[in-house]
Protein backbone atom coordinates (compact mmCIF):
# COMPACT_ATOMS: atom_id res chain seq x y z
CA UNK A 1 0.00 0.00 0.00
CA UNK A 2 2.89 2.33 0.78
CA UNK A 3 4.38 1.58 -2.60
CA UNK A 4 1.09 2.36 -4.31
CA UNK A 5 0.91 5.61 -2.39
CA UNK A 6 4.31 6.51 -3.80
CA UNK A 7 2.77 6.85 -7.24
CA UNK A 8 4.70 6.69 -10.50
CA UNK A 9 5.50 3.40 -12.19
CA UNK A 10 6.18 1.68 -8.88
CA UNK A 11 2.82 2.76 -7.60
CA UNK A 12 1.15 1.51 -10.74
CA UNK A 13 2.90 -1.83 -10.38
CA UNK A 14 1.76 -2.07 -6.78
CA UNK A 15 -1.80 -1.26 -7.78
CA UNK A 16 -1.68 -3.92 -10.46
CA UNK A 17 -0.59 -6.47 -7.87
CA UNK A 18 -3.47 -5.42 -5.63
CA UNK A 19 -5.83 -5.68 -8.58
CA UNK A 20 -4.80 -9.20 -9.53
CA UNK A 21 -4.85 -10.37 -5.93
CA UNK A 22 -8.35 -9.13 -5.18
CA UNK A 23 -10.29 -9.00 -8.42
CA UNK A 24 -11.79 -12.50 -8.11
CA UNK A 25 -12.94 -11.82 -4.57
CA UNK A 26 -14.43 -8.50 -5.64
CA UNK A 27 -16.36 -10.08 -8.50
CA UNK A 28 -17.57 -13.00 -6.40
CA UNK A 29 -18.69 -10.64 -3.68
CA UNK A 30 -20.41 -8.34 -6.15
CA UNK A 31 -22.15 -11.34 -7.68
CA UNK A 32 -23.83 -12.05 -4.35
CA UNK A 33 -25.72 -8.82 -4.82
CA UNK A 34 -26.07 -8.57 -8.57
CA UNK A 35 -26.65 -12.22 -9.43
CA UNK A 36 -25.42 -11.24 -12.83
CA UNK A 37 -21.94 -11.97 -14.05
CA UNK A 38 -21.58 -9.00 -16.37
CA UNK A 39 -22.97 -6.65 -13.77
CA UNK A 40 -20.50 -8.05 -11.24
CA UNK A 41 -17.65 -7.36 -13.65
CA UNK A 42 -18.91 -3.79 -14.05
CA UNK A 43 -19.03 -3.42 -10.30
CA UNK A 44 -15.49 -4.75 -10.07
CA UNK A 45 -14.26 -2.04 -12.44
CA UNK A 46 -16.10 0.66 -10.52
CA UNK A 47 -14.70 -0.58 -7.22
CA UNK A 48 -11.14 -0.52 -8.48
CA UNK A 49 -11.68 2.93 -9.95
CA UNK A 50 -12.89 4.03 -6.54
CA UNK A 51 -9.82 2.47 -4.95
CA UNK A 52 -7.60 4.13 -7.53
CA UNK A 53 -9.07 7.49 -6.63
CA UNK A 54 -7.93 7.01 -3.05
CA UNK A 55 -4.26 7.12 -4.08
CA UNK A 56 -2.07 8.74 -3.04
CA UNK A 57 -2.83 9.06 0.61
CA UNK A 58 -4.78 5.88 1.29
CA UNK A 59 -4.16 4.79 4.85
CA UNK A 60 -5.76 1.49 5.76
CA UNK A 61 -6.65 0.79 9.35
CA UNK A 62 -8.01 -2.64 8.47
CA UNK A 63 -7.59 -5.28 5.79
CA UNK A 64 -8.21 -4.17 2.22
CA UNK A 65 -11.10 -6.61 1.91
CA UNK A 66 -12.71 -5.05 4.95
CA UNK A 67 -12.28 -1.65 3.38
CA UNK A 68 -13.60 -2.75 0.01
CA UNK A 69 -16.60 -4.75 1.14
CA UNK A 70 -18.95 -1.83 1.80
CA UNK A 71 -17.83 -0.26 -1.47
CA UNK A 72 -18.65 -3.43 -3.37
CA UNK A 73 -21.99 -3.78 -1.64
CA UNK A 74 -22.99 -0.19 -2.24
CA UNK A 75 -21.88 -0.22 -5.85
CA UNK A 76 -23.57 -3.53 -6.56
CA UNK A 77 -26.82 -2.45 -4.96
CA UNK A 78 -26.75 0.78 -6.92
CA UNK A 79 -26.22 -1.16 -10.12
CA UNK A 80 -29.06 -3.45 -9.21
CA UNK A 81 -31.28 -0.52 -8.43
CA UNK A 82 -30.42 1.18 -11.69
CA UNK A 83 -31.40 -1.96 -13.49
CA UNK A 84 -34.84 -1.30 -12.04
CA UNK A 85 -35.36 -4.71 -10.60
CA UNK A 86 -35.64 -3.62 -7.00
CA UNK A 87 -36.55 -0.49 -5.16
CA UNK A 88 -34.38 -0.52 -2.07
CA UNK A 89 -31.30 -2.12 -0.66
CA UNK A 90 -33.15 -4.09 1.99
CA UNK A 91 -35.41 -5.52 -0.61
CA UNK A 92 -32.46 -6.37 -2.79
CA UNK A 93 -30.78 -8.23 0.00
CA UNK A 94 -33.85 -10.14 1.02
CA UNK A 95 -34.48 -11.19 -2.54
CA UNK A 96 -30.97 -12.31 -3.23
CA UNK A 97 -30.77 -16.01 -3.90
CA UNK A 98 -27.70 -17.91 -2.84
CA UNK A 99 -25.41 -18.86 -5.73
CA UNK A 100 -26.44 -22.01 -7.49
CA UNK A 101 -24.47 -25.20 -7.58
CA UNK A 102 -25.53 -28.51 -9.11
CA UNK A 103 -27.40 -30.61 -6.58
CA UNK A 104 -27.81 -34.34 -6.32
CA UNK A 105 -31.16 -34.25 -4.63
CA UNK A 106 -29.74 -35.80 -1.47
CA UNK A 107 -30.14 -34.03 1.86
CA UNK A 108 -27.28 -31.62 2.42
CA UNK A 109 -26.32 -31.29 -1.21
CA UNK A 110 -25.80 -27.96 -2.95
CA UNK A 111 -29.50 -27.38 -3.54
CA UNK A 112 -30.31 -27.92 0.10
CA UNK A 113 -27.61 -25.57 1.29
CA UNK A 114 -28.75 -23.04 -1.25
CA UNK A 115 -32.34 -23.33 -0.09
CA UNK A 116 -31.39 -22.95 3.56
CA UNK A 117 -29.17 -20.00 2.81
CA UNK A 118 -31.91 -18.34 0.83
CA UNK A 119 -34.31 -18.83 3.70
CA UNK A 120 -31.99 -17.03 6.09
CA UNK A 121 -32.62 -13.35 6.74
CA UNK A 122 -30.31 -11.37 4.47
CA UNK A 123 -28.28 -9.85 7.27
CA UNK A 124 -27.63 -13.31 8.71
CA UNK A 125 -26.64 -14.77 5.36
CA UNK A 126 -24.39 -11.83 4.66
CA UNK A 127 -22.42 -12.17 7.85
CA UNK A 128 -22.25 -15.93 7.50
CA UNK A 129 -20.60 -15.55 4.11
CA UNK A 130 -18.21 -12.89 5.34
CA UNK A 131 -17.11 -15.08 8.21
CA UNK A 132 -16.99 -18.54 6.68
CA UNK A 133 -16.50 -17.92 2.97
CA UNK A 134 -14.43 -14.75 2.97
CA UNK A 135 -12.61 -15.77 6.13
CA UNK A 136 -13.06 -12.48 7.92
CA UNK A 137 -12.74 -12.40 11.66
CA UNK A 138 -15.65 -11.20 13.73
CA UNK A 139 -13.92 -7.86 14.11
CA UNK A 140 -13.25 -7.54 10.39
CA UNK A 141 -16.83 -8.44 9.54
CA UNK A 142 -18.02 -5.86 12.05
CA UNK A 143 -15.88 -3.18 10.41
CA UNK A 144 -16.99 -4.23 6.93
CA UNK A 145 -20.63 -4.03 7.91
CA UNK A 146 -20.32 -1.03 10.19
CA UNK A 147 -21.97 -2.82 13.09
CA UNK A 148 -20.74 -3.84 16.55
CA UNK A 149 -18.91 -7.13 16.95
CA UNK A 150 -21.70 -8.33 19.22
CA UNK A 151 -24.18 -7.83 16.42
CA UNK A 152 -22.04 -9.88 14.06
CA UNK A 153 -21.73 -12.61 16.63
CA UNK A 154 -25.45 -12.60 17.26
CA UNK A 155 -26.29 -12.81 13.57
CA UNK A 156 -23.89 -15.71 13.05
CA UNK A 157 -25.29 -17.44 16.08
CA UNK A 158 -28.84 -17.21 14.76
CA UNK A 159 -27.77 -18.24 11.27
CA UNK A 160 -26.00 -21.31 12.58
CA UNK A 161 -28.97 -22.19 14.73
CA UNK A 162 -31.17 -22.11 11.64
CA UNK A 163 -28.70 -24.31 9.77
CA UNK A 164 -28.56 -26.70 12.70
CA UNK A 165 -32.32 -27.05 12.82
CA UNK A 166 -33.03 -27.27 9.11
CA UNK A 167 -33.45 -30.84 7.81
CA UNK A 168 -31.34 -30.00 4.80
CA UNK A 169 -28.24 -29.03 6.76
CA UNK A 170 -28.61 -30.45 10.25
CA UNK A 171 -26.69 -33.58 9.26
CA UNK A 172 -23.51 -31.50 9.18
CA UNK A 173 -23.93 -30.86 12.88
CA UNK A 174 -24.55 -34.48 13.79
CA UNK A 175 -21.13 -35.82 12.83
Amino acid at each position, binding site marked *: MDTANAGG*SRGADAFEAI*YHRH*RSWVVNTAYRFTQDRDAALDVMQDVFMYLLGKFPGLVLTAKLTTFLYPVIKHTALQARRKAGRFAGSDEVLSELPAPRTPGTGAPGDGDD*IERVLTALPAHQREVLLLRFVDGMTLQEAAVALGVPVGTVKSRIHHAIRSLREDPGTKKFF*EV
Partner: protein
Amino acid sequence: MPTRDDPNPQTDEPRLPDELADRLSAMHDARLFFPPDIDQAVLAKARARFGEMPEDRRRPWLRFAAPAAAAAIALGVWTVWPFTDSTGGGPALAVAGDADRSGSVDILDAFAMARLIDAGQTPPADWDVTGDGQVDRADVLAVAAIAVSLSGQADVTEGYGGIEGSGGASS
Protein backbone atom coordinates in the same frame (compact mmCIF):
# COMPACT_ATOMS: atom_id res chain seq x y z
CA MET B 1 -18.64 -31.94 15.31
CA PRO B 2 -15.33 -30.91 13.72
CA THR B 3 -15.14 -27.19 13.34
CA ARG B 4 -12.68 -24.65 12.08
CA ASP B 5 -9.80 -24.13 14.42
CA ASP B 6 -10.45 -21.16 16.58
CA PRO B 7 -7.30 -19.08 16.91
CA ASN B 8 -8.64 -17.86 20.21
CA PRO B 9 -10.42 -20.67 22.00
CA GLN B 10 -11.31 -18.33 24.82
CA THR B 11 -13.87 -16.58 22.68
CA ASP B 12 -17.44 -17.76 22.47
CA GLU B 13 -17.49 -17.30 18.74
CA PRO B 14 -20.14 -19.34 16.98
CA ARG B 15 -18.59 -21.97 14.76
CA LEU B 16 -19.60 -23.90 11.70
CA PRO B 17 -18.85 -27.57 10.97
CA ASP B 18 -15.87 -27.90 8.64
CA GLU B 19 -17.75 -29.78 5.96
CA LEU B 20 -20.51 -27.23 5.79
CA ALA B 21 -18.01 -24.38 5.74
CA ASP B 22 -16.21 -26.12 2.87
CA ARG B 23 -19.46 -26.53 0.95
CA LEU B 24 -20.25 -22.89 1.46
CA SER B 25 -16.83 -21.86 0.24
CA ALA B 26 -17.10 -24.09 -2.80
CA MET B 27 -20.46 -22.57 -3.68
CA HIS B 28 -18.97 -19.11 -3.67
CA ASP B 29 -15.63 -19.89 -5.22
CA ALA B 30 -16.52 -19.30 -8.81
CA ARG B 31 -13.69 -19.67 -11.28
CA LEU B 32 -14.04 -16.54 -13.31
CA PHE B 33 -12.79 -15.59 -16.70
CA PHE B 34 -11.71 -12.00 -16.84
CA PRO B 35 -11.91 -10.55 -20.32
CA PRO B 36 -8.50 -9.08 -21.17
CA ASP B 37 -10.05 -5.80 -22.20
CA ILE B 38 -11.41 -5.29 -18.69
CA ASP B 39 -8.01 -5.87 -17.12
CA GLN B 40 -6.40 -3.60 -19.67
CA ALA B 41 -8.96 -0.85 -19.10
CA VAL B 42 -8.54 -0.88 -15.34
CA LEU B 43 -4.76 -1.06 -15.42
CA ALA B 44 -4.43 1.59 -18.14
CA LYS B 45 -6.44 3.98 -16.00
CA ALA B 46 -4.27 3.10 -13.04
CA ARG B 47 -1.08 3.83 -14.96
CA ALA B 48 -2.46 7.12 -16.16
CA ARG B 49 -3.55 8.06 -12.67
CA PHE B 50 -0.25 7.16 -11.03
CA GLY B 51 1.63 8.94 -13.79
CA GLU B 52 -0.17 12.17 -12.92
CA MET B 53 0.92 12.16 -9.31
CA PRO B 54 3.26 14.96 -8.19
CA GLU B 55 6.94 14.14 -8.14
CA ASP B 56 7.31 14.56 -4.39
CA ARG B 57 4.61 11.97 -3.93
CA ARG B 58 6.45 9.58 -6.17
CA ARG B 59 9.47 9.21 -3.96
CA PRO B 60 8.23 9.21 -0.39
CA TRP B 61 11.37 7.36 0.63
CA LEU B 62 13.29 10.60 0.13
CA ARG B 63 11.44 12.02 3.11
CA PHE B 64 12.88 9.25 5.22
CA ALA B 65 16.35 9.21 3.68
CA ALA B 66 17.94 11.67 6.11
CA PRO B 67 16.52 10.12 9.29
CA ALA B 68 17.38 6.68 7.96
CA ALA B 69 20.96 7.72 7.26
CA ALA B 70 21.27 9.21 10.73
CA ALA B 71 19.89 6.05 12.26
CA ALA B 72 22.31 3.92 10.25
CA ILE B 73 25.26 6.01 11.40
CA ALA B 74 24.09 5.81 15.00
CA LEU B 75 23.66 2.07 14.71
CA GLY B 76 27.09 1.72 13.20
CA VAL B 77 28.66 3.72 15.99
CA TRP B 78 26.74 1.75 18.58
CA THR B 79 27.78 -1.53 16.99
CA VAL B 80 31.47 -0.78 16.67
CA TRP B 81 32.10 1.45 19.62
CA PRO B 82 31.88 -1.08 22.46
CA PHE B 83 34.42 -3.33 20.79
CA THR B 84 37.09 -0.73 20.17
CA ASP B 85 39.21 0.82 22.79
CA SER B 86 42.06 3.26 22.65
CA THR B 87 44.04 1.08 25.02
CA GLY B 88 43.74 -1.86 22.64
CA GLY B 89 42.62 -4.08 25.44
CA GLY B 90 38.91 -3.86 24.85
CA PRO B 91 36.45 -1.75 26.72
CA ALA B 92 37.20 -1.16 30.32
CA LEU B 93 34.02 -1.69 32.26
CA ALA B 94 33.40 1.00 34.81
CA VAL B 95 30.28 -0.94 35.79
CA ALA B 96 30.18 -4.70 35.69
CA GLY B 97 28.08 -5.70 32.73
CA ASP B 98 28.18 -2.29 31.10
CA ALA B 99 29.49 -3.67 27.84
CA ASP B 100 28.64 -0.63 25.81
CA ARG B 101 30.02 1.74 28.45
CA SER B 102 26.85 3.73 28.60
CA GLY B 103 27.20 4.14 32.34
CA SER B 104 24.46 1.70 33.22
CA VAL B 105 23.60 -1.92 32.62
CA ASP B 106 20.68 -2.52 30.33
CA ILE B 107 19.49 -5.10 27.88
CA LEU B 108 21.55 -3.51 25.12
CA ASP B 109 24.65 -4.62 26.97
CA ALA B 110 23.46 -8.21 26.93
CA PHE B 111 22.62 -7.86 23.27
CA ALA B 112 26.04 -6.45 22.43
CA MET B 113 27.74 -9.25 24.34
CA ALA B 114 25.62 -11.92 22.70
CA ARG B 115 26.32 -10.56 19.26
CA LEU B 116 30.06 -10.59 19.79
CA ILE B 117 30.09 -14.06 21.30
CA ASP B 118 27.84 -15.46 18.59
CA ALA B 119 30.12 -13.93 15.98
CA GLY B 120 32.93 -16.04 17.37
CA GLN B 121 35.04 -13.06 18.32
CA THR B 122 37.08 -12.90 21.47
CA PRO B 123 35.26 -10.83 24.04
CA PRO B 124 37.15 -8.61 26.47
CA ALA B 125 38.13 -10.47 29.59
CA ASP B 126 36.43 -7.97 31.86
CA TRP B 127 33.08 -9.01 30.45
CA ASP B 128 33.35 -11.99 32.75
CA VAL B 129 30.46 -10.89 34.93
CA THR B 130 29.96 -14.31 36.46
CA GLY B 131 33.60 -14.52 37.50
CA ASP B 132 34.12 -18.04 36.20
CA GLY B 133 37.17 -17.12 34.19
CA GLN B 134 35.51 -17.14 30.82
CA VAL B 135 33.19 -14.93 28.87
CA ASP B 136 30.30 -16.89 27.44
CA ARG B 137 26.53 -17.00 27.23
CA ALA B 138 26.31 -17.33 30.99
CA ASP B 139 27.65 -13.80 31.20
CA VAL B 140 25.09 -12.66 28.68
CA LEU B 141 22.31 -14.17 30.75
CA ALA B 142 23.75 -12.62 33.88
CA VAL B 143 23.83 -9.17 32.33
CA ALA B 144 20.30 -9.65 31.01
CA ALA B 145 19.19 -10.62 34.50
CA ILE B 146 20.81 -7.52 35.92
CA ALA B 147 19.21 -5.38 33.25
CA VAL B 148 15.69 -6.56 33.95
CA SER B 149 15.93 -6.78 37.72
CA LEU B 150 14.02 -4.12 39.57
CA SER B 151 16.81 -3.55 42.02
CA GLY B 152 19.56 -3.36 39.46
CA GLN B 153 21.06 -6.41 41.12
CA ALA B 154 20.62 -9.99 40.13
CA ASP B 155 21.64 -13.23 41.69
CA VAL B 156 23.30 -14.91 38.76
CA THR B 157 23.85 -18.10 40.68
CA GLU B 158 20.20 -19.08 40.41
CA GLY B 159 18.11 -19.79 37.39
CA TYR B 160 20.93 -19.78 34.89
CA GLY B 161 22.23 -23.31 35.03
CA GLY B 162 24.24 -22.97 38.19
CA ILE B 163 26.27 -20.03 37.06
CA GLU B 164 28.48 -18.92 39.80
CA GLY B 165 29.72 -15.48 40.52
CA SER B 166 28.13 -12.26 41.46
CA GLY B 167 26.19 -9.86 39.37
CA GLY B 168 27.40 -6.36 39.04
CA ALA B 169 25.20 -3.46 39.85
CA SER B 170 24.39 -0.57 37.70
CA SER B 171 25.34 2.81 38.88
